[in-house]
């Protein structure tokens, strides 16, 4: 049955409810509480350049530090980070200052952008988490940059071992690579389904799944996702919309925003967000006899790049590939105000999309926006324009 993307299938997709519950209760989820109750540690991580496998291999639950998946009052965030840091970093700090992350035993970040590094600085100063680490993340992909990043990952692992008074064995790392790679494979399968003319899952629903992926133990997540994929395989529901869209830009983990686009029948089929495609896209490739830390560090630095990396061509190349693979009619760029890395790339990306005849709608947003008001009007106009092009 082909249904309009405005109609939710939530009622029919039973397995989706579990993901939704995690999102609704984060950060006070049952999963995190259970993990803590077993006397185990939970670490927060910031930005996709933090190698999660290292944390996981130490028996720690890695949880991505985000804001709530909705816009919130940022009084403290504004006071501490000033209003000109992106609302993502302010939201995270706000939650931290309010004690929402008091269960964290550690905080790990990378030197990815000014917003993230300053968030880390202030977190360290004002929020007392027992363990801190920031990795120098090179901005290039040269062999020398890989060499430096590898040393950084080794240093991080050693720092963690010292904190835990316990070694992290290669065997544990191999296991963690397997678990994380499995999540990547499953998420890729989910995205493959969205290449169909009428995909069985909407963009907003996919975002709900992704949002949980970094907020719960991967083992359980993988199990749930398998069940969801099974269910989707059997489901006869198919979504259609007025145009196929791709969302690009700053960090975003708010299904409501996608929903607001889909409410106008714009079908979101793929994205380039660090909370979705960029999170899962590349597996860790562990060659026979290779050191797992080396394989992990290589993957994290050469993964689908953030706008912080130089040259930006690699990011643009991958975006253009996705546009083709997912038969995208138009690109929605959502850039959080004061997210400088993405803002700088905007004119360059727009030109490249123009060259292949794909229009872009550039939205200035705040983190957690639900996409109401003016955004809706602009999306509406964009969809009309895309439809007119098809006629």
């Amino acid at each position, binding site marked *: 049955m082909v249904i309009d993307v405005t109609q939710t299938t939530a009622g029919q997709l039973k397995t989706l409810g579990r993901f939704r519950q995690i999102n609704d209760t984060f950060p006070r989820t049952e999963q995190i509480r259970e993990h803590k109750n077993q006397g185990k540690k939970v670490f927060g991580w910031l930005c996709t350049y933090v190698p999660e496998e290292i944390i996981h291999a130490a028996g720690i639950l890695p949880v991505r530090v985000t804001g709530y998946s909705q816009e919130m009052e940022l009084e403290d965030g504004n006071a501490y980070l000033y209003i000109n840091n992106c609302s993502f970093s302010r939201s995270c700090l706000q939650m931290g200052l309010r004690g929402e992350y008091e269960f964290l035993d550690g905080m790990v970040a990378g030197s990815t952008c*000014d917003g993230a590094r300053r968030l880390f600085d202030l977190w360290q100063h004002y929020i007392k988490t027992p363990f801190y680490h920031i990795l120098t993340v090179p901005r290039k992909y040269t062999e020398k940059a890989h060499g430096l990043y590898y040393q950084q990952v080794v240093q991080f692992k050693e720092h963690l071992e010292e904190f835990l008074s316990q070694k992290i064995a290669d065997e544990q790392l191999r296991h963690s690579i397997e678990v994380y790679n499995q999540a990547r494979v499953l998420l890729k399968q989910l995205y493959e389904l969205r290449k169909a003319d009428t995909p069985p899952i909407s963009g907003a629903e996919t975002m709900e799944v992704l949002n949980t992926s970094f907020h719960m133990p991967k083992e359980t997540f993988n199990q749930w996702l398998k069940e969801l994929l099974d269910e989707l395989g059997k489901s006869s529901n198919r979504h259609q919309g007025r145009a196929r869209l791709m969302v690009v830009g700053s960090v975003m983990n708010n299904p409501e925003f996608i929903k607001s686009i889909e409410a106008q029948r714009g079908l979101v089929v793929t994205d380039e967000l660090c909370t979705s495609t960029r999170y899962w896209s590349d597996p860790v490739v562990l060659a026979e006899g290779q050191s797992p830390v080396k394989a992990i560090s290589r993957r994290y630095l050469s993964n689908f790049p953030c706008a912080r990396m130089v040259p930006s061509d690699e990011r643009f190349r991958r975006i253009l590939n996705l546009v083709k693979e997912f038969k995208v009619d138009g690109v929605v760029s959502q850039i959080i105000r004061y997210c400088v890395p993405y803002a*700088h790339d905007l004119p360059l990306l727009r030109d490249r999309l123009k060259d292949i005849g794909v229009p872009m709608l550039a939205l200035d947003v705040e983190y957690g926006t639900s996409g109401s008001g003016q955004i809706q009007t602009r999306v509406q106009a964009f969809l009309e324009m895309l439809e007119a092009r098809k006629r």
Partner: protein
Amino acid sequence: MKVPDTKGNKINAIIRACRIITRMNQANPDTPKSEALYYQMLSSYYTRLRNAHDEGGFIAAHTVFFPSEILYAMDIVPMHTEMTTWMMALFLGEQAEILSAGAELGLVPEICSPHRGLAGAFALGALPRPDAMLWSNLICDNTAKSGELIMELTKCPGFFLDHPFQRSEAEDKYLVSELEDMIDFLEEKSGQKMDWDKLSEIVQKMDHQMELLREIGELRKAVPSPFPNRGFLQLLTVDYLCPGQPEAIAYLETLRDELAEKVREGKGAVSPERFRLMTLFVPPMYLMGFLEKIGQEYGAVSVVEPLFTRWAEGKLDPSRPLESVARKTAMIPERRSMYGPLSQEVLQDLIDCAEQYKVDGAVYWAFMGCRHTCATVKLFKDLLNEVDVPVMTIDCDIVDPTINSEAEIREKMEQFFEMLEDR
């Protein structure tokens, strides 16, 4: 993206402005000799840039905190992009034009104005077309992201210099290897070879230059403090434009001697000296004259700028020139205080500054385009308040005068002085 012919660039106008100031200074017998040397330095920097292409020279545009020592050693003509945009704003008052050209390119207002202006200036053809674009991530995302658009606008090749975030042996080595790669790139593009002896000489002079900057810092501790408010920008420009160059040394030596004499004579930059201020981040460029004036009126003088004028201790080694250039980069005040994790050392230094310089109050210029410096407003305020130094924050833009008026800033500063007076 199309760029107009670059013949109509504004470098000539900057040179003319420097000459006019020099003539005015010559006519005024009270002008310190260092002032004349400063404008001579500027004028020769921009004359070299203007004549570069006619004389067969190779121009490398580069972003702020870039090791231009290497360019001088290779006889490549440097063009400091942010500084040149600032100069255009400062001398020619052309902010509006270049900022709106930046906006037309699609750069949003949240990108800091020096970089919006920079891209706009290139798009307008207001700057000479560089033969290569060099940029780095020192010290923010704006610098890290600015190069590619300029390469595209000017159709020139480019090299990104990746500065590691922290300090360790591996990271120091990485920076040296980045410098080596950059030299290879420049040799290939310019056809000019690195002159290692010349680089060693520059490193030696650089060592002296840093020593002079530290001495000047020491002299400013005197009560009353001898260095005028308008001098802040000059102190930065020297290293930004002419690191280890004879003009820079001549200016700094003269300045140091003048300040030493004032200290001996017990003469302050303002008289009577009533408020000793710490400046955090940079005041708007176009307000330098105003700050001088209000300082004179109220007896307020900036005695220390921890983020910009506190050079690290340490020596360079001319026999290891490239390692020394890398080491110098790590000693730059801005790199120490604004890039890398906010260490205890940096925070302690802030407190030490307040005590060593007998600071009465601090002014934090919260430049809305500069995210990482605004992110420390609250933290620095908390720390300084602990040692009984009140901090006033002024939201501003360092290039764009439309953000807040001089009258507004005057009112805030007057209130702050009143409060300091009451203490």
